């Protein structure tokens, strides 16, 4: 089941070039560019309605782009659709199956559509991998949402694809289910050598497993790069809560900390600076006899993401 080195690890396994999709005057995806490399767990992050699912549907030829180009395994999707889809396993939004068929029969059906010669033991092996051992012959109509999600992942693996596209695979799962799926994705990448394209609207989820990521909002790329680089930025967004904000503002404006002041509300002042500055400012305020009631810090990217998602 481990992937062979069919593709150049240095070149993108998936490349979106100026990809756009419009519905009338509304641009669901707006000139999006991204590269996913072999062996990546690539996080595709954005708030609800950012254009993630539309992008994924274009990558899988479910909808046609208004503009731009999609290359997978170095080939144009439009010209090599069947070759490419044969090497992709995917879940688009929630995984739906034929309810009147068992899990085993559903997997056998989708494997045969993929042209894969899959026997019963392979189906049972994949179902065991996703934690559905013992439920192989149950009809899907009796499955819970979590079980369907697991079966969805089993379906993506049944034909041994090179690239796995998962669109919000943890939606609706309980905490244990989320951990299981996370571990499974890491197993797929590390042990089986798969490349995973993971869409999510939860930053912490991407942070925990992705190697590279892109954030999109309103169909446009906001930022793209290595997760470590993006999220370990030195600069933090720090909110100090005060008992007397006016007194605190007067003291801060007369000090060097005024250079780091970003904005203030009725009881909070927001600064942009590094982690070491937090304790220094706190000590300074104590010396000036300013009562601090709370300190909250976030990385700048995290802060930005929280703002766009809360909007």
């Amino acid at each position, binding site marked *: 089941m481990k992937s062979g080195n069919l593709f150049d690890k240095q070149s993108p396994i998936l490349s979106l070039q100026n990809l756009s999709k419009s519905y009338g005057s509304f641009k669901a995806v707006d000139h999006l560019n991204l590269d996913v490399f072999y062996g990546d767990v690539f996080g595709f992050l954005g708030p609800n309605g950012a254009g993630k699912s539309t992008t994924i549907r274009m990558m899988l*030829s479910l909808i046609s782009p208004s503009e731009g180009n999609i290359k997978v395994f170095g080939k144009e999707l439009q010209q090599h659709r*069947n070759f490419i*889809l044969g090497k992709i396993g995917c879940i688009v939004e929630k995984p739906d199956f*034929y309810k009147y068929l068992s899990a085993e029969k559903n997997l056998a059906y989708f494997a045969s559509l*993929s042209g894969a010669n899959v026997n019963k033991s392979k189906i049972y092996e994949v179902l065991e991998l996703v934690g559905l051992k013992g439920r192989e012959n149950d009809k899907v109509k009796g499955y819970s949402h979590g079980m369907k999600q697991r079966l969805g992942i089993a*379906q993506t693996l049944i034909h041994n694809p090179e690239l796995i596209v998962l669109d919000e695979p943890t939606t609706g799962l309980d905490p244990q289910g989320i951990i299981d799926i996370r571990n499974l994705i890491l197993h797929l990448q590390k042990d089986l050598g798969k490349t995973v394209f993971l869409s999510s609207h939860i930053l912490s989820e991407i942070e925990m497993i992705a190697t590279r990521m892109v954030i999109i909002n309103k169909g446009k790329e906001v930022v793209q790069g290595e997760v470590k680089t993006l999220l370990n930025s030195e600069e933090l967004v720090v909110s100090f809560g005060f008992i007397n904000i006016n007194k605190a503002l007067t003291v801060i404006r007369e000090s060097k900390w005024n250079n780091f002041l970003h904005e203030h509300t009725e009881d909070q002042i927001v600064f942009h600076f590094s982690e070491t500055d937090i304790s220094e400012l706190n000590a300074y305020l104590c010396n000036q006899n300013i009562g601090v009631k709370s300190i909250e810090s976030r990385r700048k990217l995290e802060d930005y993401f929280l703002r766009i998602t809360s909007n």
Partner: protein
Amino acid sequence: MLLSLTWLEIKKISVRPRSYIGFVAITLVILLIQLAMWIDGTSYIGFVTQNIEQTFLFEGKILNGNLICFIILQTLIIQIPLLIALVTGDLVSGEAANGTIRLLLTRPVSRTNILLSKFFAGSFYTLLMLVWLGILALFVSLVAFGPGDLIVLKTDEVVILQSSDVMWRFLTALSLAFLALTLVGALSMMLSCFTENSIGPIIITMAIIILFTIVGTMEVPLFDKVKPFLFTTHMIVWRNLFEDPLPVDQIRNSILILFGHIVAFLSISLLYFNKKDILS
């Protein structure tokens, strides 16, 4: 590939409970008609032939298996398209409604092959239903009521077909009915491509058939001009098999028109389905 895809579609149809509604309905209607004829067939025949008995003298067994089969075919002509559309109208929209179309269309199979396999599977289902209809209506009636000459009463004539001349007519009539019902399948599948709910295409198919049938049967000069262009006019071509002499030109014309409609409906379906954005 197309053959294996069609086989997979047939298997999907076979495990769905709604696929058996048509078979159960046909079985019940036919058995009901046969039972009614068994109990009170003589009175029914007497009532139907009372006007012409003053002119003709009937000898032999009028109430026979061939006549019962003919009555059954006449009775079921309106219901069978509905039973076919119940399955074929759901072939594409059912996948969209259930969400399985996303998985189906992300497999390495062309949309053309997927749609054609659904059409062929739907046609195979239609064929099975007609074979079942033939077994029950023709063979069971022949066993229960025995063979005999077939008397076909029309508004202005009586056609009497000899017993030995009837079997091929029934089998050909069922073949023509297959063509007509395949058209219903192609129409409902085309409508199924345009929607994402299961019931819509079934209802619209029946509405079109009922509307065209009404237009086709009303004796209004305005409608006379459009009647030859309505596919429903040609769907009852099988009845021409029970005329003597056979209206060969009319039958050939109807076959061509039915076939042309099937090709047209299928072409529209393919054109639309291949370009359709899957948003469900």
